[in-house]
């Protein structure tokens, strides 16, 4: 099983992601955004950073990088595709996930560990986790405020497309546990099929005790297990 970790001009979390995947026993390789053939890979990760300088809107230009045609093809074939932070924004702009990420409600850049509650385990990012599990993961973003049209959001809720919600350490969802104003306290969203998903917090930064948490492991393990079972 081999994961492609896409590098856009301005990505900056790609090495952390590759390191974390390798520590967890998976193969992972960096792939430049101009690549047009990903047929040797079983899954794709779009890492965090500031792809193409975040010009126009976060992810707006990255979604037209040549590699995205291949990412879209794989997504439609059921391969596991995940976006972390800026990668989540790229997936939304590409239309592979619904909605958009706006500036945090209080206009502050947020850089601290937050708690996520796993809503269900039927997704590429939660397959190895259990419903209701609370994970402590660092959040590091300015545009993390998830929004969708009322109509889209209704469908997102009906289809159980929210996979992570911002929560208290106890797992309780409250106004104060939502750090950035996201609709439905959504921290992670999947497509209807569950093979494409994005989240704002950084699981790769919570994969070693020395980093203060290993709760990100179960998220990346979910992705690895998904690659093994997708059979693309």
């Amino acid at each position, binding site marked *: 099983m081999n994961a492609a970790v896409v590098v856009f001009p301005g990505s900056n979390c790609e090495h952390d992601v590759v390191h974390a995947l390798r520590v967890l026993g998976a193969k992972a390789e960096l792939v430049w955004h101009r690549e047009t053939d990903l047929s040797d890979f079983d899954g794709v990760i779009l890492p965090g950073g500031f792809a193409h300088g975040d010009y*126009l*809107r976060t992810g*707006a*230009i990255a979604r*037209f990088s040549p590699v995205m045609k291949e990412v879209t093809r794989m997504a439609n074939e059921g391969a596991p595709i995940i976006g972390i932070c800026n990668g989540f924004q790229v997936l*939304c*702009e590409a239309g592979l996930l619904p*909605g*958009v990420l*706006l*500036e945090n*409600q209080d*206009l502050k850049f947020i850089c601290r560990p937050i708690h996520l509650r796993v809503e269900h385990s039927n997704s590429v990012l939660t397959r190895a986790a259990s419903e209701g599990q609370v994970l402590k993961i660092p959040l590091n973003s300015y545009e993390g405020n998830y*929004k*969708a*049209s009322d109509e*889209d959001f209704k469908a997102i809720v009906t289809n159980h497309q929210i996979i992570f919600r911002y929560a208290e350490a106890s797992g309780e969802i409250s106004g104060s546990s939502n750090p950035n104003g996201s609709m439905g306290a959504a921290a992670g969203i999947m497509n209807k099929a569950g093979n494409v998903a994005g989240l704002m917090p950084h699981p790769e930064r919570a994969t070693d005790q020395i980093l203060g948490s290993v709760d990100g492991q179960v998220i990346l393990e979910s992705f690895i297990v998904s690659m093994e079972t997708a059979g693309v």
Partner: protein
Amino acid sequence: MKVTVTVRRLPNISDPQGTTVARALRDLGHEVAKVRVDKLITLEIEGDDPDAVRAQAEEMCEKLLANPVMEEYEISFQP
């Protein structure tokens, strides 16, 4: 032809930049009810058929310059 594209956030989408500018203007003593900061993109497009040029600009807006989930756009010609 010179074309101007104005990209605005939809009315139901917050514009924190506008809110911040409004606050600063009020601090300066101006009475402003509301401020929205829009984007203005100037394009030079080959061709002299306004319909064809507008169609091109529209495609650019739909694909890249604006995101319909959060924005609307307006295309106008410059002399």
